C-alpha cells in the first residue's frame, strides 16, 4: 500500500475542506493534505453557478465558482497538498489513519496527527420521504438536476413541478425557466418557505412561478415518462385533503426536500452523532468526540450560507493544527449547550472552558417561524448573551456570540423568547 505522512489530513475539498486546510497551514502546520474524490476542488459550489455567495465574507455577491476559486488560489499559494481522484473509504481514530483509493497509486494510507472531516452532505431523495405512484423517468433531486444542467449540459425536462421550497429547488426553478422550461409550480408541505426569502423573490416571484404552501404531491403518474402529479392541500396534521386533490400535467418532478450530512465515515470511526443534525457532535474547536478528529461544513449540519461554512471550518483547521503541533488549549471544564424554547439544535453542541478566554460564535436554528424575538444564552437565570431579531425562521440560521469566561455552572441554555 502507498503511504503518505502529514500533520493535518482534510477529507473533502469543498468550501469547508478548503477553508480548514488554509487555516491549518496559516496556524503553522507543516504538511497539510486535502483528499478529494472528485477530479477538481470546489465541492458542490462547482455546480452552483448562481450568485449569492460571499455577501457576508467578501461583501460582494459572487457565484459559486468565484467563491471557491478565491480559496483554491490560496491553497496553491500556501503550499497545501492536494490528492484528487481519491475516495476515502475509512478513517481510523486509534491509528490516526485515512485509507483511500487513488486513481494512480491505488490503495493509499495517509497517516496524520489530526484529521478534519469535510465531506459535505447528500440530498434526501424520493425514497427518503416516500411518495406513492409509479417509477417513470423524469424524477430527479434538485441537486442532481443542477449538476446535469450546469456541468453536463443535459436539460432534464420541459414542464416541471418542484416538491419542496428549499433553496436548491428555487434556484433550479429560475435556472430552468431561463433555459426555456415551464416551471408549473413549487409545492411546499409546510405553511412557510423552507429556503431564503431572497430566493423566493428572485427565483419564483420574478418569473411568476406559484408557490403552493401547505400542499403536497399525493401521487406521481406516468408510464415510461412522468405525465403529471396529483397535488392536494394538507390539514393541520400535514395530512392531504384528498377531496381537493388536483391533477397537474408535467414531464418532470424535482425533489428539493432537504439534505443529510454525509457521515458513513464518521460513524465507522465511532464518532458520536447528533440525532437532530445527523452530523458529529462538536465543541467550539469543531472537535468531535474523538480527540484527533475534527469536522466542519455540511457534514456537521446543513448550512444555508457558505460564508458560515468558511468561518466554522477555519476554526476546525486552526485547532486541528494546534492539536497536531501540541499546542491545544488546556481543557478545564466541559459545558453542555442545551436547546430551550423554540430552538431545534445548536452548533457547537458543547463548549470547552479552557485556560484561554474565547469568543465563540454559537449557531442555531429555530423550530418555527416567529416575529419579535429575543435570542438569549443563559446559565441558570443569568443571561450571558442576547440579541433581538425582528423575525426568525427555520430556513435562516441564527447566532449568538458567547464569551467563555462568562459561563458559570455546567450548562448553557439557548432560547428564542417571544417579546411582548
Amino acid at each position, binding site marked *: 500500500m502507498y503511504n503518505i505522512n502529514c500533520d493535518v489530513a482534510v477529507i473533502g475539498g469543498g468550501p469547508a475542506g478548503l477553508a480548514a486546510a488554509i487555516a491549518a497551514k496559516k496556524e503553522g502546520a507543516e504538511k497539510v493534505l486535502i483528499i478529494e474524490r472528485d477530479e477538481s476542488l470546489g465541492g458542490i459550489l462547482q455546480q452552483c*453557478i448562481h450568485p449569492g455567495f460571499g455577501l457576508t465574507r467578501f461583501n460582494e455577491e459572487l*457565484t459559486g465558482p*468565484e467563491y471557491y*476559486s478565491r480559496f483554491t488560489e490560496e491553497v496553491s499559494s500556501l503550499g497545501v497538498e492536494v490528492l484528487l481522484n481519491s475516495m476515502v473509504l475509512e478513517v481510523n481514530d486509534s491509528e490516526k489513519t485515512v485509507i483511500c483509493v487513488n486513481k494512480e497509486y491505488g490503495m493509499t494510507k495517509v497517516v496524520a496527527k489530526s484529521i478534519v472531516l469535510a465531506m459535505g452532505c447528500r440530498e434526501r431523495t424520493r425514497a427518503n420521504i416516500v411518495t406513492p405512484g409509479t417509477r417513470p423517468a423524469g424524477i430527479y433531486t434538485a441537486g442532481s438536476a443542477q449538476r446535469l444542467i*450546469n*456541468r453536463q449540459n443535459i436539460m432534464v425536462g420541459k414542464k416541471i413541478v418542484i416538491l419542496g421550497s428549499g433553496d436548491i429547488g428555487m434556484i433550479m426553478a429560475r435556472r430552468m425557466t*431561463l433555459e426555456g422550461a415551464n416551471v408549473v409550480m413549487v409545492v411546499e408541505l409546510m405553511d412557510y418557505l423552507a429556503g431564503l426569502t431572497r430566493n423566493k*423573490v*428572485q427565483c419564483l416571484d420574478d418569473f411568476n412561478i406559484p408557490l403552493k404552501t401547505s400542499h403536497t404531491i399525493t401521487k406521481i403518474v406516468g408510464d415510461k415518462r412522468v405525465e403529471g402529479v396529483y397535488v392536494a392541500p394538507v390539514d393541520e396534521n400535514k395530512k392531504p385533503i384528498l377531496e381537493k386533490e388536483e391533477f397537474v400535467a408535467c414531464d418532470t418532478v424535482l425533489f428539493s426536500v432537504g439534505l443529510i450530512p454525509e457521515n458513513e465515515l464518521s460513524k465507522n470511526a465511532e464518532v458520536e452523532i447528533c440525532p437532530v443534525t445527523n452530523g458529529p457532535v462538536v465543541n467550539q474547536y469543531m472537535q468531535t468526540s474523538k480527540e484527533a478528529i475534527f469536522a466542519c461544513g455540511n457534514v456537521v449540519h446543513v448550512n444555508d450560507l457558505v460564508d458560515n461554512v468558511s468561518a466554522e471550518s477555519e476554526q476546525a483547521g486552526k485547532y486541528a493544527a494546534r492539536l497536531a503541533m501540541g499546542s491545544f488549549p488546556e481543557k478545564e471544564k466541559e459545558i453542555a449547550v442545551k436547546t430551550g424554547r423554540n430552538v431545534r439544535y445548536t452548533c457547537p453542541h458543547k463548549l470547552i472552558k479552557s485556560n484561554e478566554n474565547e469568543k465563540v460564535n454559537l449557531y442555531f436554528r429555530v423550530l418555527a417561524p416567529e416575529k419579535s424575538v429575543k435570542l438569549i444564552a443563559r446559565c441558570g437565570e443569568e443571561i450571558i448573551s442576547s440579541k433581538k431579531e425582528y423575525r426568525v425562521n427555520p430556513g435562516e440560521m441564527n447566532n449568538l456570540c458567547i464569551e467563555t469566561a462568562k459561563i458559570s455552572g455546567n450548562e448553557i441554555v439557548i432560547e428564542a423568547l417571544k417579546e411582548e
Partner: protein
Amino acid sequence: MEKEIICTVCPRGCHIKVVGDDKNVQSLEGYGCKRGVDYATAEFISPVRILTTTVKIDGNDADLLPVRSNKPLPKDKLFECMEIIRKTSVKLPIKQYDVVISNICDSGADIVASKSVL
C-alpha cells in the same frame, strides 16, 4: 400603479408598498430602515438582476463554462440576453473574468467567465 416589494437587503424581509408611476415613486410604506427605501425605489423603477448561466466550449461537449454578467442587468432583458448567450461558445484557454460577450443587449454589462478553464 401600486406594487408590493419584499426587501431582500436583510433577513427581516419587509413588505414595502410602493405607489408611483414609471419614473417616480410617490409613496413608500412598511420599510424597516433607510436601505429598504433605496432598494424598493430601485426595484420599483428599474429592477435589475445578475444573470448567470453557462456557455459551450468549442470542441468539448462534456464541459461547460459558467458565466455571469459583471453588472446587474435590467430584469426585462434577461430572456433576450439568454438567447444571445445560448448561441455563443468559447475557445480555451479562458481566464476568470475574461469577457465572453461585451455590452450584451446594449445594457452596458459584459458577460464574463466565472472561472478559469485552461
